[in-house]
Structure formats: C-alpha cells, structure tokens
C-alpha cells in the first residue's frame, strides 16, 4: 500500500502547481485548467484520507467536488467566451477595466 503521506504530498504538489498556474498564466483558459488541477488535488487528498481511515466519507465528498468542478468549469468557460466576445482577448492582463 502506498503510504498516505506520499499521497498527500502528491496532492499538495499538484495543488501548488495549480495555484502557480492560476497566478502566473495569462491565458484565461489555462487559468481555468489550473483551477481544475487544484480541485483535483483536493480530491486526491480526500481519497487518500478515506483510504487511511478505512471509510468512504472522503470519497463521497470527492464525488461532490467533481460535480462542483464540472459546473464551475461550465460557468467559467461561459465567462471566458463572454469576455472574448466583449474584449476580443483571452488574456487576463488585458482586461483591467476596473483598475483605479
């Protein structure tokens, strides 16, 4: 059996990669993908804990998160499309109309 600490370590690593992606990447589509990555990292951590505890509670929550991620991706893509239609760009640093 894989030690739980390694599973969590991987989850943390994935989370950080996702976070880095969200912060650094300019392309909104990549940002969305990074957000998905963060969510899945959380899922991995949950499943790992479920395994360690021997019950399925974590897995149940993971299910919910998958559903949530799907919904969020749909909405997020709709927003990106809307932004593109309005501003003809998908780069985050080009849509700063609300700056001071």
């Amino acid at each position, binding site marked *: 059996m894989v030690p739980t600490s390694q599973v969590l370590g991987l989850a943390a690593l994935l989370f950080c990669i996702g*976070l880095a992606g*969200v912060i*650094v990447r300019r392309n909104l589509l990549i*940002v969305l993908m990074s957000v998905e990555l963060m969510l899945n990292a959380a899922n991995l951590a949950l499943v790992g804990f479920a395994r360690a505890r021997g019950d399925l509670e974590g897995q149940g929550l993971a299910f919910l998160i998958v559903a949530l991620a799907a919904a969020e991706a749909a909405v997020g893509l709709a927003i990106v499309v809307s932004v593109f239609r309005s501003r003809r760009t998908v780069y*985050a*640093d080009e849509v*700063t*109309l609300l*700056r*001071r």
Partner: protein
Amino acid sequence: MTKTFPLLWIPLLPLLGAAINLLCGRVLSRRAVHAVACGSVAGALGVVVFAIFGRLWPLAWAAEGTHVPARLVQTAYAWITAGSVELPVGLVCDPLSAVMLLVVTLVGFLIHLYSTGYMAHERDHARFFGYLNLFTGAMLILVLADNLPLLFVGWEGVGVCSYLLIGFWYDKDGTERLGLANAMAGRKAFLVNRVGDVAFLLGMLVLFAATGTLSIESLALRASDLLLPLHPLGLGPYTVAGVAGLLLFIGAMGKSAQIPLYVWLPDAMAGPTPVSALIHAATMVTAGVYMVARMNFLFMLSPAVMGLIALVGATTALFAASIGFAQHDIKKVLAYSTISQLGYMFVAVGVGAFSAGIFHLFTHAFFKACLFLGAGAIIHALHDEQDLRQMGGLRRPLATTHWTFLVSTLAIAGIPPLSGFFSKDEILWRAIATANPALGSTWLPALLYVMSLAAALCTAFYMFRLYGLVFLGERRGAAPASSHGHAGGHAGGHAGGGHAGDLHLPGPAMEAPLIVLAGGAALLGLLGLPEVVGAWLGIEHINLFERWLAPVVDQGARLADRWAGGHRVAANALAESHGLEALLLLLSVAVAVGSSALAWKLYRAGPSALVARLTARLRWFYRLVLNKYWVDELYDWIIVRPYKALAVVLFQLIDRLVIDRLGVHGAARSVDGVGRVLRRLQTGSVQHYVVGLVIGVTALVVGVVGAALLGGGG
C-alpha cells in the same frame, strides 16, 4: 388671611400687548400701537388697584395685630414636576408686592403715556412699545412670583428687555449716537447683570440643596435648615443662610448697580430716555432691593451678610454721589444719582429697616422718574442735546418741565416736607440706631451714618448744580441746526407741542406724567412720617407705610429671635431716644438746605467764575470724579481685555486651527490619504486578487491551526 384672586391678569395683559405689538405691530397704525401698549398697562393698573384696594386692604385690616400677612394667591399652572420637586407658576400679592405692583403699573403707565409723545418722531414704534410692554410683564412676574425660579424668570426677562431697549437705536447713524455704541452699551448691561445672575443661581442651588424647596413661603418655615453650617470651598463654618444670602445679594448687586457691578448703568443711558426712567430708575434696578426685602427672613438669619449689604450700600451711595459733581451729560448725572439712591436702599435693608428701604424705593420711583422724564423733555426740546454746557436759561420756555423738575430736585435733595426727605431721613436714623452683632457694634452705625449723610450732602449739591446749569442763567448753547427741518409747521403724527424759538416744546402726553409724578414726589412723604413726628403730634404708629408692611418684613426678626437666639441686627440703645432722632432730623435738614443753597449760589447764573476757580484749585479731585475714578478703564484692563484676548485665542487657535483645520479638514485629508494608498491595490487584474486571496487564506489557516496546536499542546 389668604384669598385667591386672578393675579395672572396683571402680568398677562402687558405680555399680550407685547405679543400684539411685536408680532403684528408693523401693520398697525401708530395710534393703534399706542392704544395697545398704554391700554394693556392701564388694564394691569386697573386690576392692581382693584386687587389691592378692593381685596387686599380689607384682609390686611382684619389681620392687623396678628403677625400673619394678608395675601392674595393664585396657582396658575404646574410648571415643573420632577419627582419630589414641584414648582408651580404661583403668584402671591401681599403688602410688599402691593407696593411694588403700584409702582410698576402706575409709573409704568405714565411712562408709556409719555413715550407716545417722546418717541413721536421715531420709526419702529411697534418694536419700542412691544419691548416696553414685555419689560412690564416680566417685572410684574418678578414681583408676583411666590417661588425663586419664577422670580428668576422675571429677573432674567427684565435683563433681556433692558438689553433690547438700551440698544434700541442699534442702527442709528447720527453724528453723536452711532448705533454700534448703543448696542455695546446694551451688551455691557447684559453681561454685567449676568455675573450677578450666576451668583443668584448658585444661591438658589444652595437653598434647594439645604431645604429641598424653593417656594418662598416654605423657605420661611425652615429656619432650622437655614441655620445649618456650610463649608463652601473648605472655608467656614458659615450658615446656609449666610452663603445663600451672600450669593443672592451678589445677584442683587448686579441688577441694582451696586459696587462693583454698577458700571453698566451709566452706559445704559444710551437708550431712549423713557427707558432710562422706567427701567433704570423706577423698576428694574429696584428688583434687587425688592428681592432682599422679600427674602428678609433669610437675610435676618445672617447678620454678617446684612452688615456687608449695608456697607456696600453706603459705599456705593457715597462713591456714586461724588461722581455727580463733574459730569456734564444730564443723563449721566441722573444715572449716578440713581446708583447712589439705590445704595441708600441697601443701607436700609442692610440694617433691617426693610420698610424704610422700600419706602425710599417708592418715593425714589416718583421723583427719579420725574427727573428722567423731565430730562427727556429738555433733550427733546433741544433737539437731542444732552450736554449741560450747552444748556441754561430754560426756566421760562419749559415752564412745566421746570416746576416739576424743581419739585423732584427738592425731593431728592431731602428737603422737607417733600417725600425724599422722609424716606432718606428714616434710613439715616435707622442706620445709626441699629446694632449688628456680627460686625462692630460700636463703629458700624456711626460709619454708616456718616457715609450716608455725606452722600446726602453730595446729592443735594450736584442736583442743584444740575438744576442751575439747565434752567437758570442764560442759554449757553448755540441754536442747533434743526435735525428734522422744523421751520414752522409740523407734519402730522406728532402729539402736540409747539415751538418757542428753536425749542421743541413737550406736548400734553409728556407733560401730564411729569405733573402726576411731581405730585407724588411732593405728597407721598406723608405716608411715612417718622416716629418722632408722631410723638410730637401724639399719634401712635404714624408711619402708615411701616404699618402696612410690618407683617411681611417683621418675619425675619421674629424668626431670628426664635431660632437663632436673637442673634440679629436689632435696635441699639440710641433707638430709644426721641431727642436724638429729632436732632438728627434737624441735622439732615440743615445739611440738605445748606448744600442746596451752596450749589444754588454757585450755579444760579450758569457755571460761575467761582466754580471755575474751585475747579482749578481742586483739579485732582475734579479730574478724578470727571473720569469716574477710572473704574471703567480699570475693568477694561483687568477683565475685558484678557477676556477678549482669550476669546481671540479660542477663536483663532482652537476654533480655526484645531477644530477646523486639524479636526475637520485633517480627518478628511487623512481619509483621502489612506484611500490614495489603498487604491493602488485595485489593479483590475484578477490574478493579483488571487494572490491576495491566497495570502489571506494562508494566514487564516496558519492562525487557526497554530492556535489550536498551541492551545492543545502547550
């Protein structure tokens, strides 16, 4: 011996008149304004006469011999009810208030009548008569009040009206009277009065704290509370009566222009002359004396305070009388004379001769009002000239004015058988015939007597100087350029009065009050004939005035006897001697006649060469009294300038700088500054916001987990 009576009408009628004139007077005709004003006071007079002679008199007769004063009462409405404190608007008319009511309404009515003629050429009639009525109403409230706060309402009311009326010509831009000076005089009067008022309030607080009541009747029943010891500011021990009495007296000092709070009264002459006559001679300034007489039970319990009152009165009498020697404004002479006569009244109440003090108040109201109104007639005739050096020779042209003025001058100089002699002489006698156990029983009576006699000497002199300079000799002033274009005829709207040469003679509206007042000044002395005359004529209790007031004013003496073991001012050994009384009476006459004659001789043809020589030889004295002992200048340096400097500091420094710039603008600017900085976080870039979010969440998690770990582990 108490009955109810609708006393509220007495102050209410003038107050209604004031309301009408002040609110809608501008659309009324002059005649209507006059009718409302004079009518309301006449109405009040009518009610007063009916109340006193129809109702109070029979009660007083029935109560004669008992020590219970006859009273008419009315509780008009419950004013303050706060827990255990109940202060109704309660009015009471006892023999003492009866005297004051007669003075205020009768003299008040005469002055209102006079004003219809005097103010004929002025605009703003409605405002003037409105204020005059308002004053009358307030004064009547003061007189009728049965509790101290209501009295204080009237007290403040007359103060406000005094301010309004002194500064009546606030917008006058003539050559001599600049409106601003008038307004400043009004302000000075109000502020100096205020000083006294603060003390009055403190006195009321002391009384309330000690006895739990402020109703005059109830206070009189609480002698034991009033004699409790007090240690104000750690000094003492004094009694409640002493501390409260002193504070109330300071209030009286302000209102009645005694040293050191008299400086407002000469300046108050900036107001129209009827105002000077009514407020600053007959009524408002006497409110202090009235209050002391009304609270006689309180003062009698504190002989030390009474001694102070008498000394202040005597000093003021002499001091003010000395200033009268050199003034050359006719109204200023009369103003200082008023201050001096008020001093006499305080001497009287200070030695426990309350009825003598009130009698002098009574006679003084008549002759002083007559003098002021006469001065007004003169000023009016000379087209607003007030300088004595420009007068003279007015005996023939202003005949009525002259004779009434002469009668009043004789009265104030204390020449028998006019009223002033009797009232003044009674005070002198009681001053020397009373012992004060708290101060020197040996030196005080003699000192008071000597000072009062000296003041009488000065009074006779400067009044006859005034008389001579105005009426005798030859006219000194040039015929003034007429200020309202009187060539011969008159436009309408002037109540009578014709011309004699360049003089503008007074009309009947002005002359009739003069005659009535002079009559009073001459004859009213009969009401207060001294005991020695009674002994000579074989009539007991010849002093009718004293008999009338006795139940009210003797209260104090009885209370002190019962509760303070007789520790009070009382007649001394000299009082028994009718011989001494007669002797001193003759001495008073001699002093009065002699001083008057001297002045007459010096001034009968205007200021003579002898006067000029005397002035030159006594130059230091002349300058001293001409400049009023430089008291105003002293006050200016010690009080007014520092106060104004403080006001400037408070304004420029604290108000402008601290509050406005630092406070208000500073707050705005700092908010703006912080905002400017924080605004830079708004980059509009979502990714920057994410960074912030991450930082925040991290901090939160670390914080919670860390706290949990530390709490659980450590």
